[in-house]
């Protein structure tokens, strides 16, 4: 997805302005002229300045006008593939804590592989192996506190 550089410039300028606006309630210290607001304000100013140059440049020369969508965005199957990546992460965020790492990671990798047309048997084997490997390597070896959830409560009794 490619935006008009002029829209991009306006987005950046708005971001810079927001940054400056948010520093309005930062505290000043008595007897000290340079507080926590200074640096973000300079950055905000630079961002607006650079956006203005981008705006000028984009108005002077051609380039994309409006919004140009990628071909994949009009293809429902490809769009689903695209959304599947953030979707899987959101699913993990929601499910890992209550269900536990093992069932969540298994379900996530399995569903993704099936959608990408991996044969069922291979997908099952790879999903089981990957979940077990990651759980062993990160959970046991590296001592990352992967969420235990309902699964471990049932399997390990707490």
């Amino acid at each position, binding site marked *: *997805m*490619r935006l008009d*550089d002029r829209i*991009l410039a306006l987005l*950046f300028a708005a*971001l810079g302005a927001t*940054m400056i606006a*948010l520093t309005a309630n*930062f*505290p000043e*210290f008595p007897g*000290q*002229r*340079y507080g*926590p607001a*200074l*640096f*973000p304000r300079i*950055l905000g100013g630079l*961002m607006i300045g*650079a*956006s203005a*140059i*981008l705006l*000028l*440049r984009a108005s002077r*020369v*051609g*380039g994309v006008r409006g919004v140009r969508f*990628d071909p994949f965005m009009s293809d429902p199957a*490809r769009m689903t*593939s*695209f959304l*599947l*990546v*953030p979707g*899987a*992460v*959101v699913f*993990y*965020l929601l499910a*890992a*804590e209550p269900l536990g790492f093992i069932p969540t*990671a298994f379900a*996530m*990798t399995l569903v*993704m*592989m099936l959608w*990408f047309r*991996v044969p069922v048997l*291979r*997908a099952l084997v*790879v999903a089981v192996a*990957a*979940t077990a490997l*990651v759980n062993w390597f*990160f959970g046991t070896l590296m001592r*990352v*506190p*992967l969420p235990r959830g309902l699964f471990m409560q049932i399997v390990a009794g707490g």
Partner: protein
Amino acid sequence: MAIFAGDIPAAMLRMPGTPASAAYADESYAMARKGQLELNLGVNLVFSAAGGLVGVGFLIVAAPMLAELAINFSSFEYFWLACLGLMCAIMIGSADPLKGFLSLILGLGVGCIGIDPAAGFPRFTFGNVDLLSGINFIPTMIGVFAVSELLRGAVEIDKAGYLVQDKVGALFRGLGEVTRKYWRNFIRGSLVGTLIGALPGAGADIAAWVSYAIAKRFSKEPEKFGTGHIEGVLESTSSNNAAVGGAWIPALVFGIPGDSITAIVIGVLYMKNMNPGPTVFLQNPQFIYAVFIIFILANLLMVPLGYIAIRGARRLLGVPKNVLLPLILLFCIVGSFAMTNSPYGIVLMLVFGLIGWFLEEQGVPVAPLILGLVLGEMFEQNFMTSMIKSDGSFLAFFARPIAAVLGVSTLAIIGWTLFGALRGRGDKIAVS
């Protein structure tokens, strides 16, 4: 080491494994198609190791000398040095300096989130406890680089590259002849690589591009470049590995990363209580010499390990993309989680994955964003210290001789960037 590993898929599949291998991926693939895969990988392996050793040699000699100079640096010099590094990253590192600049400011802005380094006031946290700790840059990096790549990969899951050659034969055959013919390229590549690596803000990938261009420019047979010719590959593979050693010079001596790899390294050094800067040679000399020794060993070990990697690569690269993609996503999630030990890391990864994807679609390079995020705190701290010390007088930033030189060079680069953005260079980019 990682860069050499990146050469393997570049030659076999035309998919560079690291950005540093991208400069000669086409050349390598063309060689593979001509049936010279063995010669290409052999040259890549041996000259990667040799170039790497040259870079380490310079690191060992130059770092302590520079440190002695840097010990006299005050916040003004560090401020300008950080400034210069950031500007170089934009100027040399990106096709469109103006968008690179915006990306950098965005990175510095994101770096402001959390507790402010000078006064300890929580900024842009919106009352969120996780944001108080700031934006952890490892999950951010996983998002910006890996997740955005997965997003692009998911759409083109069925378009995989194909292996041109199934078997890999004798790797080191013909190497002697190539060495005799092109030893000058090796020396030039290593020197250029070290030099570019040592520039703050420019690293192995830029070194590879520059060396490839130099090789072509000074070659006796430039017409052969692009058709599968070993000369450019040899020079740039020496160069990018030498740059790794070179990039450690500013990282160790000034705490300023030469590229995105040393940006991560600096984070790790802080975690290990080895605060990079000139005093590291006084406080932790044993670690520094350990780093040097490991560097030499790693470059020597690269030859046997690289040999095994080439043998194993065929199997690994044969794993279809549709199996690999979900697995990589799983690793990204767990890796981000492990950085914060909370879902916060995963949220950061997702958000910056989408931002990174969006920015790259707009032709905004994402590497400056990461450099800004990593350098932001040090940059702001030195800036604030300098401002408070000089009581707001901007002239004080130029009062010390080294600071003045650094300051003037930085301002010159900024001026040139703005000038270039308004004229010539930007037009071509905007149209394409």
